[in-house]
């Protein structure tokens, strides 16, 4: 195993390794998100049918993407923690839960605000949005489990079990909600379907997705670092850090 991998596996090593990454991630996120926002809001063409409310897609799709991907990040971190008993992995998982929940919330709110001018109502029980709502509940369950356990280590393991069970269920949930929706509604235009998107609409979307990814990485690392400081606060290296030393 290469040295850097071992270093990465220890909380102290992770903390030290990620310190120089932060400014780069911050700058990248900021630039990508700003560029994508300005492009999407002002320079991309409006949709022929939906008009300017279409611009919400530049928020809705990236956040939905990352909300789903984030759940897998959380579950994989939990699995690694369970299999290799890595404390750090559990800390990453704990950081990923509220982050994913927040992104899911953004996706739901933006979806609702998109729905009102488009379909006339804030809430539509379409397959994608309903699946997003269920994903939100899955995240809340993992977060709630973390809080309910008083022992931090047990909390991580319990949450990891739940996250893994949720992972096995996500495809089932998505498929069944999808099926349920087509059963009850004739094929209508799906809210996030844009198969025939013009490149000029698609490009700012890619920029925004990239920006959201960078921000996700940034926030995940920041939260993991905070958790590390909290859990390792009794240790020597954290004490030195607080005293003004370098990590």
């Amino acid at each position, binding site marked *: 195993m290469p040295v850097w991998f071992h270093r990465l596996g220890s909380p102290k090593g992770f903390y030290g390794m990620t310190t120089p990454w932060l400014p780069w991630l911050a700058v990248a996120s900021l630039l990508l998100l700003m560029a994508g926002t300005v492009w999407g809001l002002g320079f991309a063409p409006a949709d022929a049918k939906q008009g300017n409310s279409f611009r919400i897609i530049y928020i809705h799709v990236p956040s939905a993407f990352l909300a789903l991907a984030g759940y897998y990040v959380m579950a994989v971190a939990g699995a690694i923690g369970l299999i290799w008993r890595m404390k750090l992995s559990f800390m990453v998982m704990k950081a990923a839960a509220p982050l994913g929940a927040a992104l899911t919330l953004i996706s739901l709110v933006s979806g609702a605000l998109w729905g009102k001018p488009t379909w006339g109502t804030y809430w539509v029980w379409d397959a994608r949005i309903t699946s997003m709502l269920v994903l939100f509940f899955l995240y809340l369950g993992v977060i709630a489990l973390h809080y309910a356990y008083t022992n931090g280590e047990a909390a991580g393991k319990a949450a990891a*079990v739940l996250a893994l069970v949720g992972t096995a269920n996500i495809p089932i949930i998505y498929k*069944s909600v999808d099926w*349920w929706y087509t059963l009850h509604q004739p094929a209508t235009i799906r809210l996030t379907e844009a198969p025939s998107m013009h490149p000029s609409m698609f490009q700012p979307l890619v920029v925004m997705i990239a920006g959201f990814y960078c921000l996700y990485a940034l926030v995940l690392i920041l939260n993991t670092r905070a958790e590390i400081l909290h859990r390792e606060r009794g240790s020597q290296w954290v004490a030195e850090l607080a005293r003004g030393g370098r990590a």
Partner: protein
Amino acid sequence: MPASDTVPALATGRAFRALLVRDLTLAFRHRGEMANPLIFFIMVATLIPLGVTPESRQLAVLAPGIIWVMALLASLLSAESLFLADYRDGTLEQLVLSPQPLWLMVLAKITVHWLVTGLPLTLLSPLLGIMLSLPAAGFGSLLASLALGTAALSMIGAIGAALTVAISRGGLLLSLIVMPLYMPVLIFGASAVQLAVDGVSPVGNLAVLGALLAFSCLLSPFATAGALRVSLHG
């Protein structure tokens, strides 16, 4: 000297049966508690006409979904009792520490749980069908879907029960974490009944329910065993 040196370990099959019999006996001793989810099931069926409409034709439209949602809620209510009593008197600890494979012991407990909650619920459902004006075509599918579905719900609920058994007032948390996992079962169960009412064959849906049950039978005993170990030993 540890007890296992002097007392021969029970053969696995016999241990399974012993646990099954023990749990069934205990459940029947507390028949009153068994009745609670069933009474809930029927009472809530009364709420719908009171709160929504008593009109027969409208109830008929809603009946498949309502009965299924009520069955789901009743299952949720009873999920907490799966491990709680044993946790409180220390039996659960013994079970986890015993040399028997924990997943098999868990399977025994879940089986009894279903026999004592899900099965009575299923058998009671035609009564609700009558009360909520379910069209005659739906009754067969109602029984079949609930038989398969409540078994799957028992399996899934066990995971939540195991994760929350050591938490005070864990019942609410259990509902929260288990609800998303229940949804596919609900979707296919309710629509199986709806399809039958509409004159379409529900066999496909029932097959999916069967598949969900099989999947949960595979996943749940192990996940539940792991969750029990985390809950009890951290």
